[in-house]
């Protein structure tokens, strides 16, 4: 099982293939989470088919109230909010999965290497991470994005790197604990190489805390993208993403409009869905460890 297998994209197809997931039957909340994730992915994939209007088209007056043709009303420029929500799912979910996945790959590889090899490798990696962490996240992102431009690949790389520092710290600490256990020692005494020790002995046992972190990071990434978008460095108009929609519409809450609540609700629901699944995975992992009856 690799970390990528935990991204929502990977979970949904497996669910359809069989009732069991990771060899266990999902419970009720896990099912709810899986259904939420699957619906979100379906909406993202099928966006052009189900969205009533293109995301950037102006179809009426700004802030028009909801009616039969525009279920959620129109936004500040007169674009259909529902359509933007549907297209926003593509960018938000796609970017978040990609960024979080990348952050976890970088963070786990570096963290485990630091923990297993120790010595100067650990010292160098840890100091680099300390350096990155010592700068406020937004200022660092601002710096990079204004130097390298606001392309989406740059955005992905920057946020992934920032998230990877946090994953690194967790992965290193978890791996240190596991590396001191006797089955890891037994593998070393057997003569196994570093790669075997990391991938077969440590990684499978480090999944529970890392999966929990994944659920959290995935959701924070929305908000970070939104924050960058607000500063004009994230998603560029006219593309829609949920985070920037919240920012764009937020003043309307004072004028009795529910407009900012729709994208916020979309973020919240997906967050809950992801965490339901993560919680369930944590529960099967803790059961697997054989707690005394």
């Amino acid at each position, binding site marked *: 099982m690799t970390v990528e297998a935990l991204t929502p994209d990977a979970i949904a197809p497996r669910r359809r293939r069989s009732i069991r997931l990771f060899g266990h039957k999902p419970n009720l909340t896990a099912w709810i989470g899986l259904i939420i994730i699957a619906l979100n992915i379906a909406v993202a994939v099928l966006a052009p088919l189900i969205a009533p209007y293109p995301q950037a088209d102006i179809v009426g007056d700004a802030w028009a109230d909801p009616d039969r043709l525009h279920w959620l009303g129109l936004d500040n420029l007169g674009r259909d909010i529902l359509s933007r929500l549907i297209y926003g799912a593509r960018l938000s979910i796609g970017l978040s999965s990609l960024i979080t996945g990348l952050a976890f790959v970088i963070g786990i590889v570096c963290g485990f290497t630091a923990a297993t090899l120790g010595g100067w490798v650990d010292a160098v990696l840890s100091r680099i991470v300390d350096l990155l962490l010592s700068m406020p996240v937004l200022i660092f992102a601002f710096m990079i994005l204004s130097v390298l431009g606001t392309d989406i690949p740059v955005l992905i790389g920057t946020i992934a790197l920032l998230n990877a520092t946090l994953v690194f710290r967790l992965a290193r600490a978890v791996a240190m604990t596991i590396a001191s256990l*006797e*089955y890891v020692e037994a593998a070393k005494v*057997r003569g196994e190489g570093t790669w075997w020790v990391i991938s*077969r002995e440590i990684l499978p*046992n480090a999944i529970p805390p890392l999966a929990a972190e994944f659920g959290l990071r995935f959701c924070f990434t929305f908000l970070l993208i939104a924050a960058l978008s607000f500063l004009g460095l994230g998603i560029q108009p006219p593309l829609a993403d949920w985070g920037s929609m919240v920012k764009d519409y937020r003043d309307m809450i004072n004028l009795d409009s529910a407009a900012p609540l729709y994208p916020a609700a979309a973020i919240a629901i997906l967050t809950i869905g992801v965490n339901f699944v993560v919680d369930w995975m944590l529960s099967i992992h803790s059961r*697997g460890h054989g707690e005394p*009856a």
Partner: protein
Amino acid sequence: MTGSPAEAQETLLTVKDLRIEVRTDRGPGPVLVDDVSFTLRRGEVLGLIGESGAGKSTIGLSTLGYSRSGCVVSGGSMMMGGQDIRTMTGAQRRGLRGRGVAYIAQSAAASFNPSITIMDQVCEVAIRQGLMNKAEAEAAARALFRELELPNPDTFGSRYPHQVSGGQLQRAMAAMAMAARPDLLVFDEPTTALDVTTQVDVLASFRKLIREHRTAALYITHDLAVVAQIADRIMVLRRGKMVELGTARQILNEPREDYTKRLVAERAFGQTSTPAGRDAEKPLLSVNRVWASYSKFANVISDVSVELRRGDTVAVVGESGSGKSTLARVIVGLLPRSEGEISFGGQVLSPRLAGRSKDQLRRVQMIYQIPDVALNPRQTLLDVIGRPMKFYFNRSNEEVRARVLDLLRQIDLPESFITRYPSELSGGQKQRVSIARALAAEPDIIICDEITSALDQLVAEEILRLLKRLQDDLGIAYLFITHDLGTVKRIANKVVVMLKGRVVAAGETAEVFTPPHHPYTELLLSSVPEMRGEWLDEVLVRRGAIAAAAKASVATA
């Protein structure tokens, strides 16, 4: 032993038909304790004995009005002072704990708050229950420290838990439990984590304390010999049910039930003769004047020499901290030696793991103390046992599978276990799997690091028998690290006694264990509890002289 308490004495606790079961989300789960009844008079000590999972601790905790999360007292009554502990309100229970019943846990280190002085923790109960003010409580605590024979009783309390030894901390916990003068003490395996030599002192202190204060006690342990020293009556438990209840003397000398007979028989071992390794042969493993340390400043093992021949079982014994396990780590190469030489089959082994060939690594295997952490919880038994075959011999998947099934048969586990994960096995079964993993490498030597100390007596016995059988069949040599001299006498043909990183005695088992002993060997030997109730008194009398001699010998060593 005290004479059996007179009938007229008032009954302190009456437990009747106690039933404790697990409640899960899906309804009732397994029954942990079923239909257990006993009474306890003031000043009486009842020993609860049984294997792990027998329900001993569950019963002990229930007398505090406490059950572990998920467990429920679902039947019976526990009358104490005219009240049923089971139906008490939260406030009543708080009043009961500390003042009525107090608890002494197995791990004192985990039971003390490391950031608060011992004195403050010992006094807390009495002060919070409003029984004494701070000055009175501290005076009482100092008196308890003195009774428990703690060093410098007047200043002992000002120390923090990490500043005292394990045995002292265990006694400090007894002081904490006694602080509010409870009527009943619950001892939950209080000496299990201690060395044999420390155990004697702690047991003696506990017994003195109980007798002087005429406190009743429930003494929970898996070691019959320990409970023999302290209990007036013994209850044998198995799988939550009472097997037998009787006076200590009757249980130990005339057990009625089969299970009790087996328990007593395992403990009352005799010395069996083990065929000696053939001395004429060249040694397989030879550790020659080896020194090693974790830091530059203190040597953990100094000038240690050990030889192992084909078919030998060499036991390395000593207290914790004597360097036994470090010796194992040095031999396998986890800790590089700083001086000396280790050779194997005539070749000198590199001090470091990285400098050894795959074949050298294969021929020395190791089995660990705690089976729960020695097996990767994410690998099936096929992966666990099969990996050495793939790694060392590069066998195909079919060969590996066939050989793993073969090994499972050899260690008496069903073949269907091949797809199981370690968490689905019991402690003893896990330890068998560890053995199979070692065997899979087809080694010449297996280093066994305290492999039975985490297991119940009967299970440990089976593991030892298995090892013996494998040795007879395969001619493997064992380096057996242990602090249990009983085990040593039974299985080892040679013994190395270590103290503070040095070898103080070595030779044939019979020789080392026959007088005249080295004084430290004598101290170790005399500390192994015997089932006779008089043993503790005798050993305490002899103890002073032996300990002095042992100290003198260390000073001159």
